[in-house]
């Protein structure tokens, strides 16, 4: 793509340049709330970790773990009180930057009126490194080209991001292979590493507004031991990836393998249910919908998430270009891992493992890739 890539820039100009340690997240949640953010963090709901607004750190799922495998997700009870002792949850941060549905404009008679988009002040607590990387990928899609989206930019800038460095990767995680985690290195306001014995959090500051929040809560300077312990958490996590994938040269060999028999094999297992695209934090495809009010005078147009697994996605002249499951699965996987580079200069996969966990038939992108390679 041409044009300037003008991603969101995070700069550290605050007073807190050293890492600090806090003993509880309660003051952090309170400080964010009094700074005008609604705090959204992981909670337990419907047997899964789900993002929801919280008013107290007590609502965070302390002692909850998860077991994730292809087509399998279960909450577990941990034998410690880690607050972030689980991996990627089905909700990514995507819906806060690219809402599942957004109104674009209204037209009445001969006037077209843009709908002022909402950009709620939300502090997302517990964002993982893979999800931060996914936001950087979406920044390229919505801000990096010739037609930047001002509504996306406003939502993106209104988000306060509190990252958490993963301590316990899941069985379907492969962020190390994709070079995106498990430690958050950029794109956050604050980044936490949860440390045990004694239980505490190391906080890194990534932005001026992050520094302002840290200044407002009780903290102490991190010692060399704290920093070393945090490094050990990330090092251990990196060694515990549930999966790996060798992406060397994938941009060349994957599109070239368009005739590989494995596509028929995976097509026989894929239900084209669209789960993988819905849980994926980078999948950006959308479609549009038009409604007219009862008077017939005001028409409203909105944009909503779409999936390349649907038949009408590729319809031209009354017939889909990709009429077979094989064609649609191949489009998805090839786009994610290869042609995304041509279009946006980056991989479309950040290795979060969600599509593997939430595939009802347990299709595993890392396995498909290694079979096709």
């Amino acid at each position, binding site marked *: 793509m041409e044009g300037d890539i003008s991603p969101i820039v995070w700069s550290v100009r605050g007073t807190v340049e050293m890492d600090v340690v806090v003993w509880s997240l309660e003051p952090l949640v309170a400080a964010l709330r009094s700074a005008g953010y609604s705090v959204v963090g992981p909670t337990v709901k419907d047997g899964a970790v789900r993002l929801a607004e919280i008013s107290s750190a007590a609502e965070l799922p302390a002692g909850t773990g998860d077991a994730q495998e292809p087509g399998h997700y279960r909450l577990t009870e941990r034998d410690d009180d880690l607050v972030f002792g689980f991996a990627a949850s089905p909700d990514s941060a995507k819906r806060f930057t690219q809402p599942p549905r957004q109104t674009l404009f209204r037209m009445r008679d001969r006037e077209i009126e843009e709908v002022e988009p909402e950009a709620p002040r939300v502090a997302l607590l517990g964002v993982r490194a893979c999800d931060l990387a996914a936001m950087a990928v979406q920044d390229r899609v919505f801000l990096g*080209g010739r037609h930047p989206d*001002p509504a996306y930019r406003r939502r993106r800038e209104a988000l306060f991001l509190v990252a958490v460095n993963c301590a316990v990767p899941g069985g379907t995680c492969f962020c190390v292979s994709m070079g995106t985690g498990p430690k958050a290195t950029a794109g956050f306001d604050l980044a936490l590493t949860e440390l045990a014995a004694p239980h505490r959090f190391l906080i890194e500051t990534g932005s001026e507004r992050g520094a302002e929040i840290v200044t407002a809560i009780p903290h102490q300077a991190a010692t060399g031991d704290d920093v070393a312990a945090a490094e050990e958490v990330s090092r251990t996590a990196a060694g515990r990836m549930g999966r790996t994938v060798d992406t060397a040269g994938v941009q060349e060999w994957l599109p070239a393998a*368009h005739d590989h028999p494995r596509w028929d094999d995976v097509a026989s297992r894929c239900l084209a249910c669209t789960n993988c695209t819905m849980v994926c934090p980078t999948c950006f495809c959308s479609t549009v919908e038009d409604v007219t009010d009862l008077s017939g005078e005001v*028409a409203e147009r909105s944009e909503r998430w*779409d999936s390349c697994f649907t038949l009408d996605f590729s319809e031209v002249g009354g017939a889909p270009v*990709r009429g077979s499951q094989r064609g649609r699965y191949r489009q998805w996987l*090839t786009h994610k891992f290869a042609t995304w580079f*041509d*279009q946006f200069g980056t991989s479309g996969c950040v290795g979060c493992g969600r599509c593997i966990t939430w595939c009802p038939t347990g299709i595993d992108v890392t396995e498909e890739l290694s079979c096709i390679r």
Partner: protein
Amino acid sequence: MHPMTPAPYRVRSRRPDRADTVTLTLEPLGGPCPPFLPGQFTMIYARGVGEIPVSISGRARPGAYVHTIRAVGAVSRALCRTRRGDVVGVRGPYGTAWDVSAAAGLDVVVAAGGLGLAPLRTVIGELIAHRSRYGRIGLIVGTRTPLTLLYPRELARWRDAHDIDVQVIVDHPDQAWKGPVGLVTRLLDRIVFEPRRSAAFVCGPDVMMRAVAADLVRRGVPAGRVVLSLERNMKCGVGRCGHCQLGPLLLCLDGPVVSYERAAGLLAVKEL
């Protein structure tokens, strides 16, 4: 402004072409009518019905776009049904263009299948504006029936006044038809051009373009000088909906105009 928000345009004139095809001249209600290049398209919104990509088929002065639209579904039908003075939404122009001047000094083959003649009309406009710069010009047109032929009067004018060899072939002849019947590729034998010193502009259904382009290249036209206009589903026109992908290309940004050199390998893959 949001990249998906159109500007209001008024239907300045409406000319029915054939049974299901209408040519609209659209002018902005206020504000500019941005300049366009041959091959580019706009997204046209019919209030409450939807929005579709439509190639620009001509310029009308002052500041208006000409669009030729065939009624095939909900949105195109609504647009074809508009009347003078109605207001629609327009945004664009978008996409890559045919570099007509790159054909200077060469023979030119213009090949149209069906509605493909609409965008190519702007190419012909460029060619005849600087007729002496180009060698022989052959325009070959394939159409379903004699009655679905677009722009018959202009075809005659191009032939008579601008030294363009215009050839038409139909799929289904009627009793009055005395011309050739079959695929547009057959017309390549009827026009005169020196393949190695030729450039070609091609627009029509995928199958037609593949056949014409392959034939031209077989005759010796360099693949890089055979330039197609590809069609895919397009919901946004600005690189954010994902619908227009053809392998590595987002055809709303990297197309619709793509050289056969680039497109051949991609079009050869089924369901890409």
